[in-house]
């Protein structure tokens, strides 16, 4: 891999390169890159991967969120149902404090 200090900006050949885009592997000056999800990335790649493509992308994103939400809700429902079934299985003597009766009951 060539040394970054010897590279020029892909968009501005008169400027020194400041970073290499991890997506397209091209070198860019300070003005042509930005931070996105903890990576320094060029504007063209950001537009390609960072933003959903138009209305179809936005709809797909909403659909994905709705599906994830529905799956999580179903998971929650089943989890609480399993907890309820678990509570039903515990003997009521345990819940109602009858466990303490031997130690606290009155002598005949």
């Amino acid at each position, binding site marked *: 891999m060539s040394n970054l200090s010897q590279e020029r900006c892909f968009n501005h050949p008169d400027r020194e390169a400041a970073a290499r885009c991890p997506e397209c592997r091209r070198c860019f000056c300070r003005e042509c890159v930005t931070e996105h*999800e*903890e990576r320094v990335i060029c504007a063209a790649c950001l537009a390609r991967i*960072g933003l959903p493509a138009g209305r179809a992308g936005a709809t797909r994103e909403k659909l994905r*969120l*709705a599906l*994830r*939400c529905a*799956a*999580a*809700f179903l*998971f*929650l*429902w089943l*989890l*609480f*149902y399993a*907890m*309820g*079934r678990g*509570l*039903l299985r*515990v003997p*009521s003597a*345990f*819940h*109602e*404090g009858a*466990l*303490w*009766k*031997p*130690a*606290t*009951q*009155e*002598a005949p």
Partner: protein
Amino acid sequence: MKRTGARAEPKSALELSGEALDLLCAAPRGALLAYYAGAVPFVLGALFFWADMSHGAGAQDRCFAESLLLAALFAWMKFWQAVFAGSLMRHLTRAPSPPWTAARALRVMARQAAVHAYGLVAIPAALLITFPFGAVYAYYQNLTAAGDEGTDGRAATSGRAWRLALLWPRQNHLLIWLLSPWLLAAGMAVAFGAVAIVTASLPATETAGGMLRVLLAVGLASQAIVPLSPVGSVVAGNVAALLVLLPAVLHRLLGIETSFAVAGWRSILNTTFLATVYAISYLILDPVLKAAYVIRGFYGDSQRTGQDLLLALDEERGGNAQRRKA
């Protein structure tokens, strides 16, 4: 603030807890109202579910519908907790509040429900394994503290939450130890189990002696909760004392006969009483913990953005301008 590098610990857990209480006092009343608008219905629903599943006749038939309602209440609570955290963060950064629309509310609710549902399994599992508990717990708290904007992508929000969870591990673990309701739950489960084992293993005697032994076992078991959750045990102890004494005080002073006063000691020796004590303690501890994670997130982000310094500068400028005017 002392800054010796990117990994420097800027605040102790105690300082952060104090700041969290200050933030709760200084924040708009609506923030705490938002928190309780979500948490109280869920806690009441959970207590009803617990009591019904443990005592109710024909509870088996209702389990399916009630668990569905509880799942909906959980999603509702997580939405309002995000609103609460967002409101605290905006108060901290003095940022304007974006307008609420139905689409934004739905997006925030869907995002919060989609991540926090799995937290109900991930957090107890991490607590059982012990060592990843701090990071996993902080991750879910940071997802709530990410607030109600709902504009960042899932990967960005998740990445930020995980980065902040791994930041300042000592502070994070001490904060959890001080304020986490999960450690209180673990302590109460241990104490309840210890009391059950001690009392069940003793032979039956007359009321006074038996009760003395039960009280001794409860006292010893409560000592087990203190090292696990020091603040939580104080809160839970106060809540339990209030719940025990209130019916007796009502009976003595006003002559009001409640079923708790009639049942006497029996009313506290059951799992529903324990669940009620925990639920009220949760409602007291959790907003403070969430506020502490909002502040922790603010300081964590400020390491990159310098926002804490910018706000301090703004404050200084405002103070100078006022002095000049005077």
